[in-house]
C-alpha cells in the first residue's frame, strides 16, 4: 500500500474497457481551525460503462467524503475526477446522487410526486414526459399509491425509496448512492436491491454504491473496492464473477459467494484493526 506514489492497486483501473468515471490520484483533506485533516490519500480507480461497483470500508474511513468528491460536490485537494473523459468540477448532468441523509434531501413542502418531478422540471423536460417518468419511478419503488403524500408522512424506508425514485426518474448514466438501504427492514431491502439490479439492466446504468454491508456489496456488485488506512486508500479491488443475473436465495447459496464474502470481511477487519492500532499507538 505504501508503494511508490501513483501505483494503482491491481484491478483498480482498467484502461482497456470503456471508462465512464475515473479517480486519478484523488486526495482530500478537511481544513479546520486546528489545521488540515487528511481523509483521502491518493485514490485511483476507474469504473467501466454499465458496471456496478461497490465501495466498502469501516465506518468513518471516508466513503461519504470520497463520494462527494467523485460526484463533484467537493473539490479534491490533489488529483482529479473525470467523467466521460471530462474533469469534474461541479455535479455533472449525467449523474444522480442519493445521499446518506436521504430524509434531509426531500423537500417537506412538496408532495412525493412533486419531489420526484422537481429535477426533471428544473431540467426543462416536457410536461407529459415528466409525468410519465415520475409515475413510472414511483411505481418501480412501490409508492404509486402514496404520490400525493408528503415526505414527513412516510416511514424512513419509504422516504428512502422516494429519494431513490427521484434518482431513477432522472435516468442518469451514472447512479451514485451512499448507503441507500441502511434504514429499511430486511425484506424491503432485498426488494430494493433487486429493483436496482433490474433497473440497471433495463437502462444500462452505471452504479456506484457505498455500503457497509458486505452481503449487499457481494450480492449486487461486479467489482468491490475496499478502502483502508488513514488517510484512506484503495486497499483492494475484487472482481465478483457471479454473472449478471442474481437471486436473493440461489446466489447467496453459491460457494463463490461465501468465499468472496469471507475475503471482503477479513479485509475490512484488517483495515479496522490497523486503524485502531494506529490510534492507540
Amino acid at each position, binding site marked *: 500500500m505504501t508503494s511508490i506514489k501513483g501505483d494503482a492497486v491491481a484491478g483498480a483501473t482498467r484502461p482497456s474497457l470503456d471508462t465512464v468515471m475515473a479517480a486519478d490520484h484523488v486526495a482530500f483533506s478537511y481544513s479546520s481551525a486546528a489545521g488540515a485533516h487528511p481523509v483521502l490519500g491518493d485514490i485511483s480507480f476507474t469504473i467501466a460503462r454499465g458496471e456496478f461497483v461497490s465501495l466498502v470500508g469501516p465506518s468513518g474511513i471516508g466513503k461519504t467524503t470520497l463520494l462527494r468528491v467523485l460526484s463533484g*460536490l467537493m473539490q479534491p485537494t490533489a488529483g482529479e475526477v473525470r467523467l466521460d473523459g471530462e474533469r469534474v468540477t*461541479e*455535479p455533472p448532468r449525467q449523474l444522480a446522487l442519493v*445521499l446518506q441523509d436521504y430524509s434531509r434531501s426531500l*423537500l417537506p413542502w412538496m408532495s412525493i410526486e412533486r419531489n420526484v418531478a422537481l429535477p426533471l*422540471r428544473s431540467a426543462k423536460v416536457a410536461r407529459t414526459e415528466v409525468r410519465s417518468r415520475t409515475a413510472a419511478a414511483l411505481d418501480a419503488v412501490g409508492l404509486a399509491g402514496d404520490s400525493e403524500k*408528503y415526505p414527513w408522512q412516510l416511514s424512513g424506508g419509504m422516504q428512502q425509496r422516494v429519494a431513490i425514485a427521484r434518482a431513477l426518474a432522472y435516468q442518469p448514466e451514472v447512479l451514485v448512492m451512499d448507503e441507500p438501504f441502511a434504514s429499511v427492514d430486511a425484506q424491503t431491502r432485498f426488494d430494493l436491491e433487486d429493483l436496482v439490479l433490474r433497473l440497471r439492466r433495463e437502462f444500462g446504468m452505471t452504479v456506484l454504491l457505498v455500503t457497509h454491508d458486505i452481503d449487499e456489496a457481494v450480492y449486487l456488485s461486479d467489482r468491490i473496492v475496499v478502502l483502508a488506512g488513514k488517510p484512506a486508500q484503495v486497499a483492494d479491488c475484487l472482481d465478483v464473477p457471479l454473472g449478471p443475473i442474481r437471486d436473493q436465495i440461489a446466489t447467496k447459496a453459491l460457494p463463490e459467494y461465501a468465499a468472496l464474502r469471507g475475503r471482503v470481511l477479513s479485509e475490512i477487519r484488517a483495515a479496522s484493526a490497523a486503524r485502531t492500532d494506529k490510534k492507540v499507538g
Partner: protein
Amino acid sequence: MAPLAAPGHVLTWRAFGRLPRLALTVARELWFAVVVLALWWVLSSGSTSFYFPPLSEIWARFQELWLFDRVPTDVWPSLRNFGLAIVLSCAVGIPLGVVLGSLRRVREIVSPVLGFGWALPKLALLPAFIAVAGIGDGMRVSFILAGAVWPILLGAQDGVRAVDPGLRDMARSYRFGRGTLLFRVLLPAAAPQIFAGIRTSLAIGLVLMIVGEMLVASSGLGFFVLQSQQSYALVDMWAGALLIGMLGYLITLLFTVLERFVLRWHFARRAMHAAG
C-alpha cells in the same frame, strides 16, 4: 367532498352527533370573553366616572363614528399607509434577507450596520423623518417601513441560513437553476421564519403608525384618539381605542389564516411530530 356524496341520513346523524361537542368547544373558548364584556357593561352602566364612561355609551358612540361615517377620513388613510408600508417591507426585506443569508461574507460585513438598524428605537427617528420628508403620506409610509423592514429582513436571512445543507447538496447535485433553487428550495424553507418576521413587523408597524399620527398628522386613528383626549371627549377616546384594538386583532387574525394556509405543510408536520 366525500360526505356530500354520502346518503343524507348518515350526514345528518353525524352532524347531530358532533353538535354538542362543537358547542362545548365554542363555549370553552368564548365564556371568558363574554364574562369580561358583561362585567364591563354592568359595572360601568351607572358610571359617572370621568375616566370610565359606561360601555353602553362607548358602544353607541362607536357605532356613530365608525359605522361608517369617519371611515374614509380617519380609518382608510391609516390602513392604506400601513398596508403599503408592510408590502414594501416584504418587497425590500425578503430579497435582501435571502441575499444576506446566502452570502456569508457579505452578511458578516453588513452585520454591524444591520445590528444598529435593528437596535435603534425606531420612534427616535420620527423627528428626523419629519425634518427630511415633511409630514405627508410619503413620510408616514417610509417611517413605518423603516421600522417594519427589520424583522422581515432578519427572518429571511436566518431562515435561508438555516436551510439544511442536505437540501443544498441535493439542489446542487441535480443542477437546479437559480430560479428553482430560490423559489422551490430556499424561499419555502425560509418561509416559516419569514412569516414570523412579518408577524413582528405588523405589531411594530401598528405602533409606529399610531404614534406617527399622534405626533404629526391631522387625520388618522392615532390623531383621533389623542385629539379626543385633549378635548376631554373620553367616550370618543374609548371608542377610538376600541376600534384600534379590533383592527389590530383583525389584522393578526387575517395574517394567521394566511400563514396557516401558506405554511400548511409546516403546521401539519409539526402537529404530527408533536403527536408522535
